């Protein structure tokens, strides 16, 4: 009859180890898939990837030289193996008399710009993270508040208005809302410069550069969160334990703010974890629209440049972010909902 607490420290540890192992396997699979897409697809299409990296007048010798240098001549599994080795122990690139030591964690060098990938990732990751986190704070604040209000005033003018705005927010593309916000606040009214400035240069400049992307991105997500919050809140308000809370004589703010919110937040936090994870790799549109030097922008450029090492690096980092976010969500879920046992 009596069962122990949902998750003891040992259970959590075992769970973490299991999940991390699964994550590692997942990352390997992802890397293999990216390698596969990059090398096999052009081959099927009859295109030599090396031709993408030579100049306008490429003679066969130059193409062969590039192939050698990029390691494209090696079997694909050798390339994958080298990549993994580089991650953990570093590797040495040499070709044509050019020798480069790449210390661990070695993500390689960009095929295009020849810069080391790791600094690119560490340089761009904070931008994307700041974008995602800042937007998340905004959309949580406004989305959840709007959703709760809509649920409490269901059917009212406020509810209908908010849900129409939310529908707009969900369906309008970032590219559109982003340009619109730039046109109004930056080019038009001139209130905000709207260009990215690194945080270490000036806080106000950074803030000014981030605010429009934050708001634009948050608008999209706030809309989604408002809708989810509203639906969940309505469902929760119909639960028996809410009636019980009232029957105890609790005031409405406590009933809503404590009892109903706690249940409402569970799916929202789950979504938040997933969305944050996905945004680390997926804020491509926002970063492109606002020319934010984040990971999404880098990977977009890398895809059009066929710059495999950057694609691989960003994919790895973002996969890791998604996995970590999911892990956090699962752990958090167990903390919020005692019925969930980690297994």
């Amino acid at each position, binding site marked *: 009859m009596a069962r122990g607490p949902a998750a003891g420290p040992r259970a959590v540890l075992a769970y973490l180890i299991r999940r991390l192992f699964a994550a590692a396997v997942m990352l390997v699979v992802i890397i293999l898939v990216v390698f596969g897409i990059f090398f096999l697809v052009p081959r099927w299409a009859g295109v030599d990837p090396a031709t993408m990296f030579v100049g306008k007048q490429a003679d066969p010798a130059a193409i062969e030289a590039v192939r050698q240098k990029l390691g494209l001549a090696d079997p694909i599994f050798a390339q994958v193996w080298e990549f993994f080795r580089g991650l953990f122990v570093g590797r040495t690139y040499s070709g044509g008399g*050019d020798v*480069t030591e790449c210390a661990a964690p070695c993500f390689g060098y960009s095929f295009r710009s020849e810069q080391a990938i790791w600094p690119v990732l560490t340089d761009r990751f904070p931008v994307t993270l700041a974008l995602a986190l800042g937007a998340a704070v905004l959309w949580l604040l406004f989305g959840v508040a709007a959703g709760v209000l809509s649920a409490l005033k269901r059917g009212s003018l406020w509810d209908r208005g908010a849900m129409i705005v939310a529908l707009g927010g969900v369906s309008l593309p970032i590219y559109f809302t982003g*340009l619109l916000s730039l046109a109004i606040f930056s080019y038009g009214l001139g209130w905000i410069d709207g*260009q990215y400035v690194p945080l270490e240069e000036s806080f106000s400049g950074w803030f000014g550069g981030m605010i429009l992307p934050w708001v634009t991105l948050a608008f999209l997500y706030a809309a989604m969160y408002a809708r989810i919050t509203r639906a969940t809140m309505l469902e929760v308000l119909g639960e028996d334990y809410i009636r019980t809370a009232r029957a105890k004589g609790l005031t409405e703010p406590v009933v809503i703010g404590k009892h109903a919110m706690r249940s409402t937040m569970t799916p929202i936090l789950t979504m938040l974890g997933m969305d944050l994870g996905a945004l680390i790799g997926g804020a491509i549109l926002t970063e492109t629209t606002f020319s934010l*030097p984040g990971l999404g922008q880098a990977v977009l*450029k890398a895809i059009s440049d066929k710059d495999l090492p950057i694609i691989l690096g960003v994919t790895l980092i973002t996969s890791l972010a998604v996995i970590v976010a999911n892990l956090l969500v699962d752990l958090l879920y167990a903390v919020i909902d005692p019925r969930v046992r980690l297994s």
Partner: protein
Amino acid sequence: MSTQRTTGRRKQAVAAAAVVAALLSTAACGGGNDDKDGGSKSGAAGFNAANNKVAQASLAKKGGTLKFASAQDADSWDTTRGYYGFMWNFSRYYSRQLVTNNAEAGADGAKVTPDLASSTAKISDDGKTYTYTLRDGITWEDGKPITSKDVKYGIERVWAQDVLSGGPIYLQQVLDPKKTYKGPYKDKSADKLGLKAVETPDDKTIVFKLPEANSDFEEMLALTSASPVRQDKDTKSKYGLKPFSSGPYKFQSYTPNKNLTLVRNTEWKQSSDPVRKAYPDKITINFFTNANDLDQRLINGDYDLDLAQTGLSPQGRTTALKQHKENLDNPVSGYIRYAVFPQSVKPFDNEHCRKAVIYGADHESLQTARGGPVAGGDIGTNMLPPSVPGSEGQKYDPYESATTNKNGNVAKAKEELKACGKPNGFKTTIAVRNNKPVEVATAESLQASLKKIGVTVDIDQFDGAQTTGIIGSPSNVKKKGYGIIIMGWGPDFPSVQGYGLPLWSGDYILESGNNNFALIKEKAIDGLFKSYTKELDDAKKADIAKQINHKVMEGGYYLPFVFEKFINWRSSRLANVYTTDGYSGQYDFVNLGLKK
């Protein structure tokens, strides 16, 4: 040279062309204050004030920060590896060459002038030996003098294509056509200066010994890829991240696709440099990913000019023409946009079928698809760009594309079809890059007009990033049945050789990376190129260029669309601004100044 930045959708391109035309015709009477150095209220010099002429030269002052914006980073800032037009132009800030393009507006800018060398080459009578003497006071950014050995080493780097891929290889083709030298990184000699064709008898003298004469050799030495590189500063494949400066500015910081900042190279002496004015104290480039945002910020005055120099996007163009016409120039880019017919794909092995397509095309609607006469360019009537000596422009119009037949000539086209043995037309495929909406629009326009002569075409959009591998492979072109390929080409240096050799020479048909898409293998053309390389007289060179152009057009290998034009933005802060044929109608970056 450069790749073109194009945004917006196909249809927008056509609509925008109409808007541009309307705006220009109405503004022609009222707008554009053209007084000499005064400019408009905003201080801008006026519409086309800097097109092939110098605007507001006297207003340029020392100092300030010149701000470039760009939607595109260079392929590489390594002088050996860059191939984009704007990179060659911009590289003059931090690199010098023995000779370089003249700092003059328009056609004069395409001529070479001494830079590190005290004068242009002393050329031997057989045209095979070029001798230069370096001038005094030329220094690297650490103050050490630039020697002839640095120049030789820099040139040798072109041979290291395995490490330093991407740049032009003319120097290698002319100095060492058999590729006996393996490049400085595999050079066994102690000083790594083993290239036999270049001699450096002392630090001030450099001698080039060509196995065969080439009358454009000095043009090739004016390319950025002939810049000196100091051996102890050569970071090989990483050199493009921070090139060691020989010019008036040096790299302060550079993060690819983010930003680049140049500051004054204090060791550079104005007295040693007859070309570069070096007005600003600082030069920055900010890279954008949103072309519309970039154009808006140019118009807002946040930046001075677009690094890529490929024209405003359709939206930006409309706004700019309406409100800030005095900030615009409408130069010819040097590019020709065209369709080309691979002879390996039937029935284009028959010249009559090729000509049927040329006659059948509606040249005016193709021009509209390109953006119209202003944003797109004049109807292309032949294959020699206006900036190349020997060009006759629209005066040479063998198919009367700009006149009688500008909307297509169905009767003539049918005649040619009959001669080709396909009186009822035929089916073929157009290959077009999927990342160039304007090119897709032209393909659709061509498709529509060819329907009228019974030629049905499919449009195949291929990955524009893989041009070299897809249409650059003749076997692939044949396999896919690409009877029509839509492309564009600009001169690497303004000569028929710098433009047409890779396109039209039988020796340049390559298995991969081919640019002779038509697979032209005419003895007459190859012979003309050969005699061109031996001819040292400019007038005669121009005449040979003209003949080559005629031969190409007579073969019916190409359907030119436009002699391309751009609408480029220059901020009101800019002074001493002019377009130059040396860089295909771009502003001459190195001499831009700011007003105070």
